């Protein structure tokens, strides 16, 4: 082996049996990240995830922009879950600047967040399908995602990066007849969702590939600090929407989905069941929402936060997503720290892949609900 290569690139040779494989950082199969996998025949001996290929310095960029100008770039890490990544930012800035949010705006925000969670989960499910070579499961969620993109486009005016939530409420009120249109499409979507069962989740080919692979026990899930669907698939009943309800989630009727198995199958099944709960939340929020009223508290131009710090977190499509913001009497934040679910779930990968077959790597990897761009921020 050449000794001139930098440490990350160098391939270690341990003995004749063990071979090092680089999965990534090109896109197919890994996302924008690299997995350094050592294999003994077909079995994985060790796995070393190497993220950071799409680091953009979002946290540093936020220190040079005021609280409103931060909105478009902060949603870039997860463009198909953009309402949920802005949600904790808005909650934190509202507490920092002491803004009251109108009641109707809180419901509109919850609807936007749940629609966006479905968009994210469908996108994730489409990639999970194609990872396992199931191209029907790529086409169906990618097509049904259009139903929600259409609704959010009517709400916010953009198909992907919505920039809809702002500190103080939302950018604009719902369009006319939105409630009727939303209910019609959500009802249809629930019907479609049930069809996924026969073709994917009850498909013996999927079950044989995912059941019993990459088992994460309940104690390990807590010890490793995992979050979101990974934690709930290991039998821990923890959902921030239930445990630390923000905005109006405490008034809404939904349940936390928990599974005990902790294998790849459970981790892929929990987000699917959560989409039903999201539909339930949307329906309930539309019913309980005040029918008229203001949706935005206007901020002063260039609002200044005091000498203060605040931490807020929400349940995103990938787990807990929190913002820690420090301000020092200036229109720009002094420090913004984004704590993302993807990065916290990444740590399980060396534990889960040890001793697995190499062929099971894609199913374990993508079941962690990992989004490389968000993890790198």
């Amino acid at each position, binding site marked *: 082996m050449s000794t001139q290569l930098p440490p990350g690139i160098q391939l270690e040779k341990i003995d004749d049996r063990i071979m090092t494989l680089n999965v990534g950082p090109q896109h197919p199969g890994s996302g924008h990240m690299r997995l350094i996998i050592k294999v003994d025949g077909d079995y994985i001996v060790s796995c070393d995830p190497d993220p950071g290929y799409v680091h953009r310095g979002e946290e540093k960029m936020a220190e040079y922009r005021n609280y409103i100008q931060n909105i478009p770039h902060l949603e870039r890490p997860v463009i198909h879950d953009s309402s949920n990544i802005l949600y904790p930012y808005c909650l934190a800035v509202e507490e920092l600047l002491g803004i009251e949010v109108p009641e109707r705006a809180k419901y509109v925000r919850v609807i936007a967040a749940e629609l966006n969670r479905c968009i994210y989960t469908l996108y994730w499910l489409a990639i999970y399908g194609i990872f396992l070579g199931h191209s029907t499961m790529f086409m169906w969620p990618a097509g049904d995602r259009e139903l929600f993109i259409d609704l959010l486009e009517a709400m*916010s005016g953009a198909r992907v990066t919505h*920039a809809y939530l702002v500190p103080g409420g939302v950018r604009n009120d719902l369009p006319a007849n939105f409630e009727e249109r939303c209910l019609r499409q959500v009802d249809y979507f629930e019907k479609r969702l049930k069809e996924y069962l026969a073709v994917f989740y009850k498909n013996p080919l999927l079950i044989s590939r995912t059941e019993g692979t990459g088992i994460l026990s309940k104690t390990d899930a807590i010890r490793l600090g995992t979050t979101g669907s990974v934690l709930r698939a290991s039998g821990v009943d923890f959902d921030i929407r239930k445990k630390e309800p923000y905005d109006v989630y405490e008034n809404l009727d939904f349940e936390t989905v928990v599974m005990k198995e902790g294998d790849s199958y459970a981790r892929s099944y929990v987000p699917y069941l959560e989409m039903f709960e999201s539909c339930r939340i949307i329906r309930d929020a539309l019913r309980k929402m005040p029918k008229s009223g203001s949706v935005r508290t206007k901020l002063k131009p260039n609002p200044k936060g005091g000498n203060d710090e605040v931490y807020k977190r929400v349940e995103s499509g990938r787990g807990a997503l929190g913002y820690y913001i420090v301000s020092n009497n200036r229109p720009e934040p002094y420090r913004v720290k984004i704590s993302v679910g993807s990065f916290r779930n990444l740590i399980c990968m060396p534990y889960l892949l040890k001793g697995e077959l190499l062929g099971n790597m894609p199913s374990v990897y993508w079941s962690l609900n990992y989004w490389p761009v968000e993890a790198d921020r």
Partner: protein
Amino acid sequence: MSTAGGIIRALNSGVKHLAIRRFTLRYPEQKLKFVGDGFQFNPETGVGIAGLRGRHILYHEHCTGCQLCSVACEGIAEAIGMVKVNETWKQNKKAIMPQIDYGKCVFCGLCVDACPFYALYMTNDYELSSFTKSALIYTPAQLAIKPKISQDVEIKVDDRGATHG
């Protein structure tokens, strides 16, 4: 459930879709219908009016050349620059108006929120491709033109499934 039975059930559930109408939008022939005339601002309530955030429209008779749209865009896309125009308006003594570079614009619409004189709105026009970079820079005169668009297709849901039509 036996393996063979499960596979047959999965295939059957896919085969049923041969009889269901196509959901895909046939894009250049069909175009999606949007709510309203694009993202606008309501002076009475102080919030926006829902609509697609596409290409901007500039009302020259309202623009005062205050540069607030350009300031709002700083740090986001820096797509808006103020340019001299050969027009005389009572409210616009400096005779400057925004020029927007659509090679940089991210269509967040924060310039519309920032405009205190309701001169800058967004329209339903989203087909802005061109062969040169310079053609993406829209001058105030180009921004004043109301786009002509025919958008007629929306998602229809009935017993036989959803379709664009």
